[in-house]
């Protein structure tokens, strides 16, 4: 168990301010990065590379959502890709069988994946560390097995065809970017509010947080539900973009990619995982032509970052800026 540290109210307040300025700096950096991403279609019109960037944004949303749960609240779920899959199947099945319009289906996907997240979050409330990781991992595998074996309903591994939303790649590009920026702003507002402090207090010391009056049950469950809803949203958008829903969306490898992006970018930082999602995915598409060692390299990077640079690329960048400021 983590040692609880006694802090005076004054120290708490300055800690809160510190944490807020830190989050604000990260938020601004993330906005700058998104502005750069917004300019890319002016120079790049190749539909293949636009597609790569769209998928990067899909992963950026997932990494951001997982980071909220794992990086800020300390709940290490291994099911982020599963919630994307649940969202994708919600809108996919509604569209395929009942002809529900994609926009309505996406709303339904957010609600359903959020509810599933709420239930799972409530169930695993008391599990920590390896127990939580194993429970969410088995939840993920059960969901994937159900999706791929309910062939009568989901058409199994063949996948379910769903309606598209528009034909323009650039349109999709800005839709995903818009979704990403909206979620970024929502996460920023959440983290800057008292809720953000509660979540981080729970991560740092659950017992102390409870003694200090934080409603631990409520906030842990809420973090799970919000993270799941955001992942489900990304999955639903992706379903209409790809016009196909398959159980592959929920593969452990997908979760591995999300975890890698978050760790390389910097867990518990707002900007790191978003930027790393682009770096990792675009680099991996690019490296595919030169040898294809990309996944080996990223896995090695995950190990190296976890072992030596806990705060990821964002932490390294911040340290570099600090050094230059002092020199």
């Amino acid at each position: 168990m983590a040692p609880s540290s006694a802090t005076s109210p004054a120290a708490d307040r300055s800690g809160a301010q510190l944490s807020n300025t830190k989050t604000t700096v990260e938020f601004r950096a993330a906005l700058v990065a998104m502005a750069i991403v917004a300019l890319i279609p002016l120079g790049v019109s190749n539909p293949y590379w636009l597609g790569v960037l769209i998928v990067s944004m899909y992963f950026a949303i997932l990494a951001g959502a997982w980071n909220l749960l794992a990086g800020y609240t300390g709940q290490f779920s291994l099911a982020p890709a599963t919630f994307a899959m649940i969202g994708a199947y919600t809108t996919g099945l509604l569209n395929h069988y009942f002809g529900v319009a994609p926009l309505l289906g996406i709303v339904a996907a957010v609600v359903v994946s959020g509810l599933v997240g709420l239930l799972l979050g409530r169930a695993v409330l008391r599990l920590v560390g390896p127990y939580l990781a194993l429970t969410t991992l088995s939840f993920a595998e059960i969901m994937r097995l159900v999706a791929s074996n309910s062939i009568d309903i989901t058409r199994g591994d063949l996948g379910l065809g769903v309606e598209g939303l528009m034909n323009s790649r650039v349109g999709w590009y800005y839709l995903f970017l818009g979704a990403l920026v909206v979620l970024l702003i929502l996460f920023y507002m959440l983290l800057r509010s008292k809720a953000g402090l509660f979540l981080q207090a729970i991560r740092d010391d659950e017992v102390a947080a409870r003694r200090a009056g934080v409603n631990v049950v409520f906030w842990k469950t809420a973090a799970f539900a919000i993270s799941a809803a955001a992942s489900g949203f990304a999955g639903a958008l992706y379903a209409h973009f790809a016009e196909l829903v398959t159980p592959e969306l929920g593969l452990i490898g997908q979760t591995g990619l999300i975890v890698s992006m978050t760790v390389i970018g910097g867990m518990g930082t707002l900007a790191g995982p978003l930027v790393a999602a682009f770096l990792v995915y675009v680099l991996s598409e690019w490296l595919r032509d030169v040898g294809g060692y990309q996944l080996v390299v990223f896995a090695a990077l995950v190990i190296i970052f976890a072992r030596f640079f806990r705060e990821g690329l964002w932490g390294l960048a911040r340290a570099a800026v600090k050094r230059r400021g002092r020199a």
Partner: protein
Amino acid sequence: MSGIDVDLAVNGLITGLFYALMAIGLSLIFGILKIVNFAHGEFYMVGAYAYTLIALALGVPVWIALPLAFVVGALLGWLTERTLMRPLYAGYTSWGLMRDEYAVIVTFGLSLFLINLVDKVIGPYAYRGPPLVETSRVVLGPVLISGHRLLAAGIAIAVIAITAALIKWSFWGQQIRAVSQNRLGASLAGIDTAKASVIVFMLSGGLAAFAGALLSPVINASPDVGIFPAIKSYIIVVLGGMGSVPGAIIASLFLGVIESFGAVYISFQYRDAFGLILLMLFLLFRPQGLFGEKGREV
């Protein structure tokens, strides 16, 4: 009990023996470091490749290739412990309070690394290992079994028995059990906890690799072949109680039999889901498992 039931039970028990080879190591690691090694399936995968490549590419006799696979797995376990697990107890991790998260990430990363490395270096094709004996089928009453599987089951029983005896009675086995009961207490009593961790990782890697080698004529080793055996061993370790070796052995046999009957009588498609559902139920309602010991504090 009809003939088919006997056949299902025996084949389920044999599958359970191979599960046990994997699960014992995982359980010992949990006992000593309180972490789950998410790269455990990759030790198994490396063992299958080591045996197959040593026997086929170098032309080494299978009876020498088999123990060599154990050695390769043990070396990998040693390397993992020295490079990645040390920070968990040596107190210089940069993760501070997030020790559990470090362990999950770093073993998960190791798993991705080994899968993709083997995929690039050796290739994504499936390799079939040479069987220990060529007899294709042995008939024992109602039970039909291949000669290799029968022999491999016998070897597995011997290895499991030796391992369990070592853990129970040997000097280092007792020290390992002391450390898993209470790390601080054990180190106060003069036990070298670092050395105990190294031994556990070498034994665990070696056993998983050995399981992979024994099964390589059946499983057609490919880079991701370890994922499912690893998930089975997580289930077993939770059912048997994390850290308990006898619990792991009993739970392995139990799961093997359940899956064998479930696949025939309930649903073939969902045969892999039974264990996972059990796993979730246990983690939610009885996390100490069937035989788990509660930790002792000093």
